[in-house]
């Protein structure tokens, strides 16, 4: 089987199996201490106990290999660039270590810096770079070694929201051409929504769930996954307090925004009614119930908008409300959200210069 197969047996730290197909981006989510970084280290081979972890990549057994013989590219929350080398030498370090000539390595480094939009900073030392630029160089450095597994450990979490958004776009473009497996540890719903093909949910050192973002949003196994994946995310172009959605229709905001945005609101902010609401909620759509899953007294309802926009929505309602609304598949309802519950994240307008 090509792709990644990792079986971890580190009781108390991480137990379970993680698989990924070539070209797939798997988001790894879980609260602090759940074992996310342990998973990354196990695949990279930097764990002292690497022998108790089976890691197979593209049919090659990495379990006994030291980190330098595994073809894994790492990017951390802190860029961890070599402070004594300029950006170009940082990116050239990997190819040089793997036997490329100086000239090849430098030429390759320049190409990667160019692709990640930081060619003009090639001669800068890390302390002269902004946070976003450093992380672009770190990505270039990881990609320049032509890794078969890309390991991203919260790569955007130390950046401003706007800078993170532009870097997320850049990463998305490169991952479309990347044929290896990407594991991305994240705490950010937008990362999952924008990039992930699949999600692995960790809790207390165990892999508790594995599935598409949609499947996990419908029936999250942990409260953490519920908060992270259950978020409703709609994209569009904002003009003042109105967002023209990419799925059609419009969304009203309380706070004005400009340009491309991601608008988010919690499933608990969605009100379901049998008839068209007449209250103060500015955003309302006729919806069809696709699925309803109960967990800990809360019913998460997966809805599809029938008119106004062509979007999927999630709503959380109590068991009592669910019974009152007679929630069954295909039931037609109205969903409404107050504009004050919607947060708009300005995305591509962001720049880290």
């Amino acid at each position, binding site marked *: 089987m090509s792709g990644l197969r990792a079986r971890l047996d580190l009781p108390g730290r991480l137990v379970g199996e993680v698989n990924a197909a070539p070209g797939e981006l798997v988001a790894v989510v879980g609260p602090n201490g759940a074992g996310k970084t342990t998973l990354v280290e196990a695949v*990279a*081979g*930097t764990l002292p106990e690497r022998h108790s972890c089976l890691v197979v990549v593209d049919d090659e057994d990495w379990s006994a290999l*030291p*980190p*330098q*013989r*595994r*073809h*894994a*590219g*790492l990017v*951390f929350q802190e860029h*961890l660039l*070599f*402070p*004594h080398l300029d950006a170009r030498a940082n990116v050239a*370090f*990997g190819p040089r*270590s*793997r036997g490329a000539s100086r000239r090849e390595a430098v030429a390759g480094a320049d190409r990667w810096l160019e692709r990640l939009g930081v060619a003009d900073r090639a001669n800068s030392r890390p302390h002269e770079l902004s946070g976003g630029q450093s992380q672009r160089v770190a990505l270039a*450095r990881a990609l320049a*070694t032509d890794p078969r597994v890309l390991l991203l450990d919260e790569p955007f979490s130390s950046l401003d929201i706007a800078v993170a958004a532009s870097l997320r776009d850049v990463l998305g473009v490169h991952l479309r051409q990347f044929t290896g497996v990407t594991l991305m540890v994240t705490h950010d719903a937008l990362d999952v929504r924008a990039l992930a093909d699949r999600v692995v949910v960790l809790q207390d050192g165990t892999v508790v769930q594995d599935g598409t973002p949609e499947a996990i949003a419908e029936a999250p196994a942990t409260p953490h996954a519920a908060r992270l994946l259950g978020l409703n995310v709609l994209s569009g172009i904002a003009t003042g307090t109105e967002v023209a959605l990419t799925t059609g229709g419009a969304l009203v905001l309380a706070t004005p925004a400009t340009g491309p945005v991601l608008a988010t609101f919690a499933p608990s902010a969605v009100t379901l009614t049998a008839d068209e609401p007449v209250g103060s909620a500015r955003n309302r759509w006729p919806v069809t119930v696709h699925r309803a899953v109960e967990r800990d007294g809360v019913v998460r309802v997966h809805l599809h908008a029938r008119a106004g926009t062509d979007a999927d929505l999630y709503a959380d309602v109590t068991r009592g409300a669910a019974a009152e609304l007679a929630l069954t598949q295909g039931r037609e309802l109205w969903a409404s959200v107050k504009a004050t519950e919607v947060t708009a994240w300005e995305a591509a307008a962001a720049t880290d210069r």
Partner: protein
Amino acid sequence: MFLVLPLVALVASAPWGRMGAIVTAPDAREALWLSLWTSSVAAALCLVLGLPLAWLLARADFPGRQLLRALVTVPLVLPPVVAGVALLSAFGRRGIVGEPLRAAFGTQIPYTTAAVVLAHTFVALPFFVLSLEGALRSTPERLERVAASLGADRWTTFRRVTVPLAAPGLAAGLVLAWARSLGEFGATITFAGNYPGTTRTMPLAVYTALQQDRDTAIALSLVLLALCVAVLLALRERWWNVR
């Protein structure tokens, strides 16, 4: 006050009129040259012996590491005369290394310039190792792991990441070792003797001169003082530039 007063007194009592003549006298020039090059060779030996040792102490995890560190520190607290006697017991005519060495090759170490270098290296090595170990410890190990993930083996990582990052500590260690060698007296006179031209370094020349001509001793001491101050200033400037 207590620290500065003797130095002020030294400068004040200098025979400024005869300085030029004393310092350029053949004996003085010989001693100065001998001191400079034996100290430099000793510093180089410290680099060769001390670099792997410091790395072991800072990075490797093995039983007996604490013991090794204690052993490295011993020459630091050992009276230099005792160091000289110890070196004699090892490399002397009847020493455990010296005797077979003489039998096999006819070489004799004590009372030669080689003995000066050995004595210097022995007392200066701990300064270098401890200073470098500190620098190695303060360079983040995570950067070394990043280097490994980029395909660098241990040696490449050491050469291209660990050592460059520890460079200021390495330079400081070399200077400390060099300065300690330059001032070395007890171990040298015990192990290498006090022969003009071969083992009479500057401190020995000062001591010798003090017994006959106080002015010469003061003048030579001033040369040593000036040398130390010059090195400190030069390095200071470089360290400031790095920051």
